[in-house]
């Protein structure tokens, strides 16, 4: 059986054989996969690193925030038109969220040891303006005291107050034209900006615009309609002390005025004071009149009454731009210095290394201070600050470049190029430098957070004052926030949060980039 098959195969006639690829040219088969370049490969590896990708998105978000927050914010840091600062250290407040009673963005500020008088005043503000300053009563302490032989209760409250509503009413002096303008605005928009006037003499000379009711003593105890009963001390029982046309002089009451409910036409809304008028304004509505919108501070306001949302953006803008400028200048200088060191080696390297050794020995703080003392007067704080960073900042980049040059300068292609007669500069920048570019550029991503961090530290410490140039900076905001930590925690939390997020994101991003461009460091934690 086997034998016969073999015989058959041995006896195949020659004419049955044909060439497999007769008449065709034989090629290597084309690779089916796509070639991946250096950049593409780096991008691919970068994408695999989830945390860096997230960090990249966070950076984009934070940068967009810095660009757009001063644009979309209705406020500016130095608004020339409006001289009055309204709300100092006011907490974050968005009215639509506040209405939902979630405990956030409700403008809530803690008020401790509030006595009965003040609490009554808050209730009176609620009654008059319709805006309730008290969000919640967190704690009530009741004490019994003997007052003029009678025992009576006194309360001390811990409240969470809406810092915007609790302002209540304020006295303002304005021109008559202004007064008419406000009245017209009030009628058109149905907003009670100006409240009925209360004269000091009617409320026991208490100089407090919030008190619109008759009082029994100069501490501000409200006089009640139902004086006999020790019954409910409700705000509805308060007796209004509004001045009427009969007894007080004001501007002409015959022009259309926006009157409060319950006004029979006798209340006056202004009190003549020389050529101007003295009025009681509803602070919240007065603000609305001046700005054209209700107060809305997403991140609250700073110690100076500025919108924090805008201030953070403004400060971050400077930090980011400054860091990018410093990083690129340092990169430029460092690359040139480092390539010369690394390429020429020997004595040149030795001497240049000593120079950078000495410069790197000077603490950054000292450099910044000296530059500040010498140059700030002549060229302004920002350029002198910039010089200080450049003075020692390039050293890291130079040593990195030097290392790369040492690594590549002995390679065969460099030797080949030299044999072919290439000049030193050509070898340095055409052959060696492009190979080390990846490492150098990625380390730049780690320089940026370093610069932002130390810039913020220095402005925080107050060694450099940039507020005249940039309006504010993250460091300044945090420093102010730290001062008012117990009264307005938000003013510390938001800048610190932004700053921390920026630093974390940049570091994660930089590390991811470094790993992506350096296959050898891949997998190392860092």
């Amino acid at each position, binding site marked *: 059986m086997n034998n016969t098959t073999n015989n058959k195969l041995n006896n195949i006639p020659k004419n049955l054989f044909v060439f497999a690829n007769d008449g065709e040219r034989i090629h290597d088969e084309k690779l089916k996969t796509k070639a991946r370049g250096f950049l593409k490969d780096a991008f691919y590896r970068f994408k695999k690193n989830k945390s860096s990708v997230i960090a990249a998105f966070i950076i984009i978000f934070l940068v967009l925030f810095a660009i757009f927050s001063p644009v979309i914010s209705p406020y500016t840091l130095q608004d020339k038109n409006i001289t009055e600062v309204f709300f100092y250290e006011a907490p974050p407040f968005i009215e639509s969220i506040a209405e939902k009673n979630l405990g956030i963005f409700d403008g809530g500020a803690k008020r401790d040891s509030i006595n009965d008088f003040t609490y009554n005043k808050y209730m009176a503000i609620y009654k008059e303006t319709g805006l309730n300053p008290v969000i919640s009563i967190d704690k009530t302490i009741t004490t019994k005291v003997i007052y003029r032989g009678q025992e009576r209760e006194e309360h001390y409250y811990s409240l969470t107050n809406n810092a915007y509503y609790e302002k209540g009413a304020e006295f303002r002096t304005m021109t008559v034209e202004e007064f008419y303008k406000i009245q017209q605005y009030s009628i058109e928009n149905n907003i009670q900006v100006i409240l009925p006037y209360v004269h000091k003499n009617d409320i026991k000379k208490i100089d407090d615009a919030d008190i619109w009711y008759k009082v029994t003593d100069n501490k501000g105890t409200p006089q009640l309609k139902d004086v006999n009963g020790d019954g409910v001390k409700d705000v509805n029982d308060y007796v209004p002390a509004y001045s009427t046309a009969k007894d007080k002089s004001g501007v002409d009451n015959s022009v259309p005025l926006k009157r409060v409910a319950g006004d029979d036409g006798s209340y006056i809304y202004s009190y003549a004071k020389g050529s101007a008028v003295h009025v009681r304004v509803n602070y919240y509505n007065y603000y609305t009149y001046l700005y054209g919108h209700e107060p809305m501070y997403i991140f609250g306001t700073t110690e100076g009454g500025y919108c924090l949302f805008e201030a953070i953006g403004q400060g971050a803008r400077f930090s980011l731009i400054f860091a990018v400028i410093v990083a690129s200048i340092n990169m430029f200088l460092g690359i040139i210095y480092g390539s010369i060191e690394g390429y020429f080696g020997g004595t040149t390297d030795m001497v240049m290394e000593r120079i950078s050794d000495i410069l790197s020995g000077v603490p950054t703080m000292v450099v910044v201070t000296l530059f500040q003392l010498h140059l700030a007067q002549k060229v302004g704080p920002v350029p002198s600050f910039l010089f200080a960073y450049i003075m020692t900042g390039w050293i890291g980049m130079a040593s990195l470049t030097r290392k790369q040059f040492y690594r590549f300068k002995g390679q065969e292609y460099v030797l080949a190029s030299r044999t072919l007669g290439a000049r030193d500069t050509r070898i340095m920048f055409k052959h060696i430098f492009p190979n080390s570019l990846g490492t150098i550029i990625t380390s730049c991503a780690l320089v940026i957070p370093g610069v932002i961090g130390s810039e913020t530290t220095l402005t925080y410490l107050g060694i450099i004052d940039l507020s005249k140039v940039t309006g504010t900076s993250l460091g300044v905001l945090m420093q102010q926030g730290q001062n008012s930590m117990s009264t307005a925690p938000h003013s510390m939390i938001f800048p610190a949060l932004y700053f921390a997020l920026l630093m974390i994101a940049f570091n994660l991003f930089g590390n991811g980039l470094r790993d992506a461009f350096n296959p050898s460091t891949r997998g190392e*934690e860092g």
Partner: protein
Amino acid sequence: MLKYVLQRIVLMFFTLLIILSMCFILVRLLPPVKLPQGDPHTAAIELQRELLGYNKPLLVQLGIFYKNIFLKWEWGVSDKLYLGQKVWPIFIEKLPATAIVNLYSILLSIPIGIIFGIVAALKKNSWLDYTISTSTMVVISVPSFVYAFLIQFFFSYKLDIFPFQMKEGTDFFTWDMFVSMLPAVLSLSFGVIAGFTRTTRAELSEVLTSEFMLLARTKGLTRAQATVRHALKNCMVVIVPAIFGEFIGIMSGSLIIEQIFAVPGVGGLYLNSINGRDYPMFMLLTSFYTTIGLAAGIIVDISYGFIDPRIRMGSRK
């Protein structure tokens, strides 16, 4: 080895001299601080200035400056902050607070950091490792004063455990003082812990994959034995110099942490000397910080050679 050490020290000394001369000249180029009229110290300081050569050429002034330091250890007289007092005793008085706060922070954070690092390396690529590594990364990125805020806000303000600022006085070893130092100590520790965790983890995970570890296991050591006796010992080559570096750094402290927690230390003095333009004080502190920085670098370098006999410092190719 000895030759190398001496070489480094001499080199450091010259570097220091050059830096200080530069700083000195830059400082003296500034107009001297105006002295308050009628103050009894004014005349004394003016006399002192005359002796220091304020009206002579800069190089002569530099010579007088160095002569005073090398022969008499005389750093000059404060002409603003502590009018008429010598700066050196004031500086020495401020040093303990800074050193103690930093010492506590190092004593707290080095063991914690190393332990975290070991755990992360041993459990590499587990959720524990990921948690530790990620939080290390996050903690390292954020400057220490952000932790200081958080600690002050939560522990001092919300929970009221710690005082807002460090207690005044010089009773550094009482319990009250210790508690009042804790916020500063904790804020300083975060960064150090993260740094040591990162170093230990990177180093240990590399050592654990070495061939001698396999050999150790093959000859019958348990995993724990092999790790402690072989792996840890080897990774100490990197960690111990870092510890030395930290210890040198304790004296320089942190300007910002001292500022936040009102630690009566060198950092605050430095800030005041900058803001108050007290140049003699500024010069002394500049010298101090520069020396610390240079010394830390050298000690780290040299300690490598002492710890690991395989490393021959300064040897040629």
